[in-house]
């Protein structure tokens, strides 16, 4: 199976957000970055499918030059090669622009399967995967927690269809069958992640990273006017002091004010 995995570089969860001067996005010059969480699970799932069915795993990332960090990490974990759609504007682009850029970069490769995460930690559109499926003319299924790919007995050329477990709300699930080629958006927790080994890191140095410059795409469909920190909805009583003082004060208030102990 020839599998593409879309991976996005996002700021780490630990990084204290700072807003840029124009107040339209973050000031990320001094930020630290990591692989978007569900994308790591998507990569792992692709590597497992390749182990079962042979084939190739290609990671695709759209972003500025710094996205090379997560590309190298994915290659070290076992991806065979990478496509980097490189443009500064892709750091904070809308979902359609990103999907357009990825679609033009991978269309001719005729992947059997395209995996994305279900949502990015920064923009949180929950759109790029599904829009990409539409642009590539592939059927899709989202929030996937298990992938079954049976070898088709007749063709001998790998699976022709998938049966996938889609997460629904409140602990419910549903199996969906769909023909290949297809696109799945992967939910965190679908598998247990492997990490890069020293050998993997060394091997990654020799792997191909194809750089693509996106052709100017259609107009963006949405624009951020400004970003701001949320207001507190509830009056939170912040308790201060040393850990011992704060703990004493908290327990007292839970007993006497809230009466929940």
């Amino acid at each position, binding site marked *: 199976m020839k599998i593409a995995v879309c991976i996005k570089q996002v700021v780490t969860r630990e990084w204290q957000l700072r807003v840029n001067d124009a107040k339209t996005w973050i000031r990320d010059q001094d930020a630290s970055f990591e692989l978007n969480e569900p994308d790591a699970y998507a990569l792992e799932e692709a590597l497992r499918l390749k182990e079962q069915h042979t084939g190739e795993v290609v990671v695709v990332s759209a972003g500025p030059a710094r996205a090379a960090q997560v590309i190298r990490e994915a290659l070290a974990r076992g991806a065979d090669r990478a496509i980097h759609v490189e443009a500064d504007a892709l750091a904070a682009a809308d979902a*359609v622009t990103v999907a357009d850029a990825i679609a033009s970069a991978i269309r001719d490769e005729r992947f059997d399967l395209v995996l994305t995460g279900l949502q990015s930690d920064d923009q*949180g559109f929950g759109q790029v995967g599904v829009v990409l499926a539409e642009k590539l003319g592939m059927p899709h299924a989202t929030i996937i927690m298990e992938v079954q790919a049976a070898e088709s007995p007749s063709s001998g050329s790998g699976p022709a269809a998938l049966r996938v477990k889609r997460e629904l709300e409140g602990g419910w699930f*549903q199996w969906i069958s769909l023909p290949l080629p297809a696109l799945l958006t992967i939910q965190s*927790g679908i598998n247990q992640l492997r990490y890069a080994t020293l050998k993997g890191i060394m091997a990654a140095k020799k792997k191909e990273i194809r750089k693509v410059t996106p052709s100017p795409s259609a107009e963006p469909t949405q624009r951020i006017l400004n970003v701001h920190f*949320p207001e507190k909805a*509830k009056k939170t009583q912040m308790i201060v002091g040393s850990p011992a003082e704060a703990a004493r004060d908290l*327990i007292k208030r839970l007993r006497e004010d809230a009466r929940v102990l």
Partner: protein
Amino acid sequence: MVLVIAEQRGGKLNRATWETVAAAQQAGGPVAIAVLGAGADAAAAELAAADVAEVIVVEAPAVAEYTADGYVLALAALAAQEQPALVFLAHTYQTRDFAPALAARLGRALVTDVTAVKKTGDRLVYVRPVFQGKLNADVEATGPAPHLVTFQIGAFRADAAARGSSSAPSRTVAVPVDAGAIRQKAEAPFQEARQAVDLSQAERIVSVGRGIKAQEHLKIAEELARALGAEIAASRPICDAGWLPMDRQIGSSGQTVAPKLYVALGISGAIQHLVGMKGSRTIVAINKDPEAPIFELADFGIVGDLFEIVPAMIAELKK
């Protein structure tokens, strides 16, 4: 016209549809609600109580059961017929599954997970969370109508949806959907093996998040739970890692709880977690990041290292 796409299964309406109706009424202008799938008539009858211009029952046998392809085909045809200015949906898992494809098929903007709409004259500005709720963005949709907008669950109140003095008129619209063009085949929804613990009945819950860092640290949370007479629960990453079983997960994919006391240890407060616990009577948050969104919801907050504060709480409770 604002067209609200209802979500229902077998005639049972998803409550979030009423929230979306409330959002549509606030956006201004006439509102119509479209209902599709098996059981649409029953759901439409219930929605006719809303103060809206009309309820549209979409007739398309191929979409009796939900599939992404089926909904995209049916709703693209409906949008072409009805020419709405806006299409509003609840940001459910089902909407996540088809709305981006629908917008792409129509070549229209889709703004997701919106929590508020600001209106100045004719201009609508949507507020949506970015960076896992640590920031809000004011967003404008561009390009031709209709713009599609999905609303975060709980952002609008279902009971804020105005009811009409009489039943809204209902209309049935047939849309052509070629069953052969639907590529997904769906099986019936199911629940994983029966849940061993029912946290919805717990009086007190100590919930751990990624701030706990390692599985072996869970025991200090468990010790606190014992001292408080509480059940232990967790955010998703803890269950994903297998440190606690799935049936202890709180949130949109897990359990919904409303205990007297909910203590969140090292949980940032992503919306998918908050929807599962925001009904708790008293919420305590302990987090080292003063900007963590969990503090927006907490009654009591301590900014600090849980590895210092939790032992101090245990010591205090043992006094």
